[in-house]
Every structure is written in structure tokens, then in C-alpha cells.
């Protein structure tokens, strides 16, 4: 990034107009959430035409919307790491898995020797085990993930970006494998191996059904109640992301993302700030893990695959790195597309044209293609943060400069500042 030329000034709306723009997206999402709630509430009560009901059950079942909300939470966590701090994390599924297993340990009869019940709500017919209130487990999952985020980050954050990506990827592979093989760790069963932990205690909350609104433990079909819970959790994470972004820490993250050297010269403590990004991103991942465990009422180790990390990354990239609203939109759209949209569109296509194409098997192509095309043609995502747009759409360099692949070399003013920087003959030894 060049210091010499100032970034082109974007013409921004000022005054009242700007304030209005600032509230556009929050209001949009709030309206979306409330509108969806009212719509599904009416639908649950059975006031709508059965045809409408069928259509909605096919195209927008509440289950898939709940799942999409879980994805939103995790994607917002990844957004803090990748979008704010610019650290590529390819193993984010690890935090999802840890959060899920924290829920599995603290909300089930898995540890049947223990008899702990802290405001818990054990499922019927389950004797023993640890049963802790869902909201406390959310906090516990967040705390454990923050701890692991810092633990994973501490030794690796000194590395350059691509090495960092690789090491996080390694952690993202190790941690699910630990859970996968966890039924016999030195003779101890810590995770029930491939069988996973199931069932997980139902959450006690407001239950909305045709019988009215009651306070009871949620059954497998109380999707609307879970929707409310997930919306609350999502709002918490959105709030956290937005407030952090405005604050000192958030500005430090952006500074690091844009130029690490300049940031550290300005007194930004690199290690601490990066670790904070990892820890806080992991918090959101942990909350998503707990929420997902409550959503499917169990944890299975085989679910935590590399493709989850990539899907999350695709959500962040597609929506617009660094912009909370963009990431939310990207996550909602991709999650819906993955769970419902692609099969449904495929069915419609097949029945219309009389073909029999298995559309869900194209998801690899779809995700890979999305990543590649986005990077080639719209690197900043569909709804970019204005700052990201400026950085990623850097002013085109001159032909001569553009020949060099590494950007670091493009700032001649920095040469004097670099202490023990690379010199030509160092590099000559490579390759």
C-alpha cells in the first residue's frame, strides 16, 4: 500500500442523509427479523391458506432459517478475524466444534457419574449428567472458545499470513479429530467418539403454538421459539461486532489489516491486538457452536469438516469482508441456498424441464466457482465496507510496478525504515 498518493476520496453523503444511510441496514435487518417472526407466528396459528403454508414449508422452512442464523453467528465471528484484523483463518470450524462439545458436556447425561444441575432442564428419562442452563452454557462455550482462540493464536500469530492460514487449518483438522477419536484417550471417554453426544437438554423458553404461549421446555418442533433465541444471540454478536469496530480495538484491527508495519510504528501492540481478534472471533464461533447443538439437539464429530470453514469464508467474502451487514446477508443467502435453495431450485428445474440432475452434488462447483469469480471480478464482496473497497480496489499501479508480485516492494519510502529487511542475495538462495 502506498503512502505517497492519498487514497481517492469517496464522495460520501453528509449530514442527515449520511445518518439515514447509517441506519438503513440495521433497520432492514430488524424489519426482516420482526417481519419473519410475525409471518411465522401467523403461520403457526394456522390463519393462512394451506397453499401458502405448503410453499413456505418447501422454500423457507423455519428450520433452515434457524440454521442460517447459526451460520450468521459463526460468520460474524470469522468476520472479526478475517474482515477486521485481516488474518486468514481456515480452521474456524474448530471453534464451532468446541462450542458444540461444551454444550454436549454441560447439557446432557453424558457424564453419568456426575449429578449437577444448575438451573438446568434435563431431558426426560435421563439420570445423572451435568445439566446447566442454556444461557449459562452459551457463556461457558464463549469463554472456552476464547481461551482456545488465544491458545491457538499465541504461538502462530507471529507468522506471515499464508503460514497463519495453514496453521489455523491444521488446528481446524486436529480438533475435530480429537473429538472423533475422543472415546478412548488413554482409556477415558471424553467425547463418545463417532457416536457423538445426544440428546442434549431441551432449552426452556417461551413456546408458541396453537395452544397459545407457554413457558416450557422446547420440543423438536418448537422452531419459532428457537428462532427467537437465535435472533437474540445474533443481535448480541452483531452488537459486539459493531461496537468493537468503532472502538479503539477495532481501529487497531483495521490498522493492522491495512499495514502491519505502520500500525506497529504508531504504537499498536501487534500481538495483543491480533490475539484479541482471535479470542473475540472465537467467542462468536463458540456461541454458534452451542446454538447449533441446541438446534439439532446433539453433536456429531463428523459434521465438523473443512468445508464448513470454507463455507464460512465464502460467506464473509461474498457479503463483503469487514462489513457486518454484508456478512449477515452473505451468510443468510448462502446458508439458505445450501440447505434449501439448491435442492428446491434443482427440483423445480428438474420437474419443469423433465431432467434428473442431482443439484446438491453441484455445491462444490458452486462454492468454488463463487470464491474464484468473486475474487476475480468483485474482490470486495457485494456489500463492502467503504474502506475495504478502497483498499481492495487500489489505484492501478503503473505497468512497471505491476510486474512485481509483492506489494511490500511498492513502498520505496519504507526502504530506509526496514531494519534488516530482505536483500537480493538472501532471496537468490531460494528456488
Amino acid at each position, binding site marked *: 500500500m502506498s503512502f505517497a498518493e492519498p487514497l481517492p476520496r469517496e464522495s460520501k453523503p453528509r449530514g442527515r442523509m449520511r445518518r439515514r444511510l447509517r441506519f438503513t441496514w440495521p433497520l432492514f435487518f430488524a424489519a426482516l427479523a420482526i417481519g419473519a417472526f410475525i409471518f411465522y407466528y401467523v403461520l403457526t396459528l394456522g390463519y393462512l391458506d394451506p397453499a401458502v403454508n405448503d410453499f413456505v414449508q418447501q422454500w423457507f422452512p423455519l428450520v433452515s432459517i434457524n440454521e442460517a442464523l447459526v451460520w450468521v453467528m459463526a460468520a460474524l465471528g470469522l468476520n472479526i478475524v478475517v474482515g477486521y484484523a485481516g488474518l486468514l483463518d481456515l480452521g474456524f470450524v474448530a471453534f464451532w466444534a468446541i462450542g458444540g462439545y461444551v454444550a454436549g458436556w454441560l447439557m446432557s447425561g453424558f457424564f453419568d457419574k456426575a449429578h449437577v444441575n444448575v438451573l438446568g432442564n434435563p431431558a426426560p428419562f435421563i439420570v445423572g449428567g451435568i445439566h446447566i442452563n442454556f444461557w449459562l452454557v452459551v457463556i461457558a462455550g464463549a469463554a472456552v472458545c476464547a481461551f482456545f482462540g488465544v491458545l491457538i493464536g499465541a*504461538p502462530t500469530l507471529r*507468522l506471515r499470513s499464508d503460514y497463519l492460514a495453514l496453521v489455523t487449518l491444521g488446528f481446524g*483438522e486436529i480438533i475435530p479429530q480429537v473429538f472423533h477419536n475422543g472415546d478412548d484417550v488413554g482409556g477415558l471417554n471424553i467425547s463418545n467418539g463417532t457416536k457423538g453426544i445426544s440428546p442434549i437438554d431441551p432449552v426452556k423458553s417461551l413456546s408458541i403454538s396453537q395452544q397459545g404461549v407457554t413457558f416450557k421446555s422446547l420440543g423438536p418442533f418448537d422452531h419459532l421459539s428457537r428462532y427467537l433465541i437465535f435472533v437474540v444471540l445474533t443481535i448480541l454478536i452483531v452488537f459486539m461486532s459493531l461496537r468493537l469496530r468503532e472502538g479503539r480495538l477495532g481501529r487497531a484491527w483495521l490498522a493492522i489489516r491495512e499495514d502491519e508495519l505502520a500500525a506497529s510504528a504508531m504504537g499498536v501492540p501487534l500481538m495483543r491486538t491480533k490475539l484479541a481478534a482471535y479470542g473475540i472471533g472465537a467467542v462468536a464461533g463458540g456461541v454458534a457452536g452451542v446454538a447449533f447443538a441446541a438446534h439439532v439437539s446433539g453433536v456429531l464429530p463428523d459434521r465438523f469438516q473443512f468445508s464448513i470453514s470454507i463455507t464460512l*469464508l465464502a460467506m464473509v467474502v461474498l457479503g463483503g469482508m469487514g462489513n457486518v451487514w454484508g456478512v449477515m446477508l452473505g451468510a443468510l443467502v448462502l446458508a439458505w441456498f445450501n440447505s434449501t435453495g439448491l435442492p428446491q431450485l434443482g427440483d423445480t428445474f428438474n420437474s419443469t424441464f423433465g431432467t434428473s440432475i442431482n443439484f446438491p452434488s453441484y455445491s462444490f462447483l458452486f462454492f*468454488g466457482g463463487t470464491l474464484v469469480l468473486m475474487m*476475480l471480478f468483485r474482490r470486495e464482496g457485494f456489500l463492502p465496507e467503504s474502506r475495504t473497497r478502497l483498499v481492495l480496489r487500489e489505484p492501478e499501479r503503473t505497468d512497471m510496478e505491476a510486474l512485481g508480485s509483492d506489494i511490500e516492494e511498492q513502498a520505496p519510502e519504507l526502504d530506509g525504515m526496514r531494519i534488516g*529487511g*530482505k536483500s537480493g542475495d538472501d*532471496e537468490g538462495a531460494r528456488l
Partner: protein
Amino acid sequence: MTSSAPAVRSPQLAVRARAVAGRAAAILVLAVGAVWLAVNLFHAPTQFFQSAVYGLRNGVLYALIALGYTLVYGIIELINFAHGDLFMLGTLFSAFTLTGLGLTVSSPKGWLGFVLVLVLAMIFCASINVTIEFLAYRRLRRAPKLAPLITAVGMSFILQFVGLRWNGSTPRLWPSVLPAGHFQIGGVNIDYNILVVITVTAGLLALMTWIVTSTRTGKAMRATAQDQDAARLMGINVNRIISFTFAMGGALAGAAGILYQQTVGTTRYNAGFQLGLIAFTAAVLGGIGNLAGAVLGGVLIGVIQGLNDGLPYAFGQEWSQSVVFAILIMLMVFKPTGLLGQNIGEKV
């Protein structure tokens, strides 16, 4: 701000203490590893060498794949995530071509077919790699680093999709045209196909070393890796040299593909991801960008993995991945430059 003497000195002391502690920890880790090897060697020498031989076979394949990573990284500093999947396409190509030619048994005709398909697979993978570079990476050469990396991940998914379509979602078993059977040295079985793998790899390595060190193209490659601007000023066609590097990496992946398919005997659409990751670990272990390092790293990783899978006192096969990645993480902590890598300074 008042600057007192201890306030200035203590960070230095802390840095030195950290360096000493780091070195001590590294020595401790190595010592634990050595004790582990010694105990196993003493307890079950035959099993030790048998596992090491199998590990060596895998390690040689890892080395071939790792070379592709290291070549590309050396020249444009990109972790080509799609490289492992390219290798997977190589396994599929050779399996389907050999079977399509009707070569399913070990015979002189089969061996001839093996050589033919080896060359075809190398050409196949090289052309795919060059195409990917031309379509995707070339346009992103001036972009921030995150962009080509994410593109590579996307490409890896696209290649996996091709593999999924081609192979199907379940692993397939294939016959081998290589001579079956084994001979024994001191109770250790050595398969004939291991010898084939090692011979082919050694030949390819010699060829590649010759290209890189002794030809004009190799000189141009080294120049491009060092400084693209200066290379272009010297009249080197940088784009062509980068394409050629991708072709070389792809050809090695293709060779690794057919060797893997012929010795292991299975193809899976997601084989590339895991093997590619392990191979990349190998490249990093040896010092990325360093060709000899990639080979050393591949063989080391293969042998360690083989020992872990086969020894009586070890974590066992189900922890194989974790062991490899744990090695990677420890290496990153203690020696980020790799075993043979030069310290090129931390570029910020």
C-alpha cells in the same frame, strides 16, 4: 516519558529469556521424539523398519507433491491450495486411462503402458495447472495476498467437484500393473512397487534439478523468483516462466498421481485435500521455496507418519493427521523457516 535503565533493559532480557526457553523446549521435543524412536526400535526392530519402509514410499510421493507447492511458492509466493486436488485428478486420470487401455495385469505390456500413462498423466496435470494459472492466478498477481489464496481454495473446490463427478463419491479399487510381490532383507518385506516408486521419483528429481540449475529456462526461473521486475528488464518473459513453473509442478503432481494409484490402489475424490495438506506440511518442514528441502520434508513426514501408524508404542493410524499437523505447528513455533530454509526475514 522518563526512560530509566531497567525499563530499557528488561525487554531485552525478556526477549533473550524467551529465546532460551524456546530453544530448550525445542530440544525437549526432539529428545522426546528420539526416546520414542529408541524405545520402539529396541522393542520391535523388524516392525520399526517395516513401518519405515512403508513410510518411505508415502514420503517419496509426498515429496513429489511438495515440490509442486514449493516451486509455485518460490516463484509467486502463493500457496496453491488446488495442487493436492490436481494430484487427485492425476490419480483418476491414470486409473481410468490404464483400465481404459485394458491394462489390468502385471506384464511387460502393462509396464510399457505404465510408462506411457505416466507421461500422459504428467502432461494432463501440467496442462490443467497451466490453465488454472492462466485463468485465475495471473489476473490476481497484483492483488493483495488474500485474494489469490482464496482463489486457490475456490479452485481446489472446483477440482474436487470434477473428481467427484469422475470418480463418484465412494472410493474405487483398481488393479495394479506394477510387479507384485516382495523380497526380504533381514525380515523386512520390501515390495517391488516401492522400488518402482523410488526409481521413477529419483529420475524425475534428477531431471528437475537439471532443468532448474543447468538450463537457460531454469536460470530464468531463478531470476524471476528473485525479482520479477529485474528479470523482465533482462528480457525474460515472466509470464511464460511462471507458466512453465506451474507446468513443472503439475507434471510432478501427475507423476505422483499415477504412482499413488498404482501402489495404494484406490482413488477418492477427496484424497487430494488430505495428501495435499500433508505435502504442503512437508514443503514447509523443509523450508518452503527450497527444492531439496521439499524432498527432505516429504520423506521425513512420510517416515514419521509410517512409524506412527505402524509402531507398537505410538498414537496409531486414527491420529495420523493430528500428528502431522502437530509437527507442522511445532515447527512453525520453533523454526518457521523450515529445516533447510534460509532466513529471508519476516516480511511485514
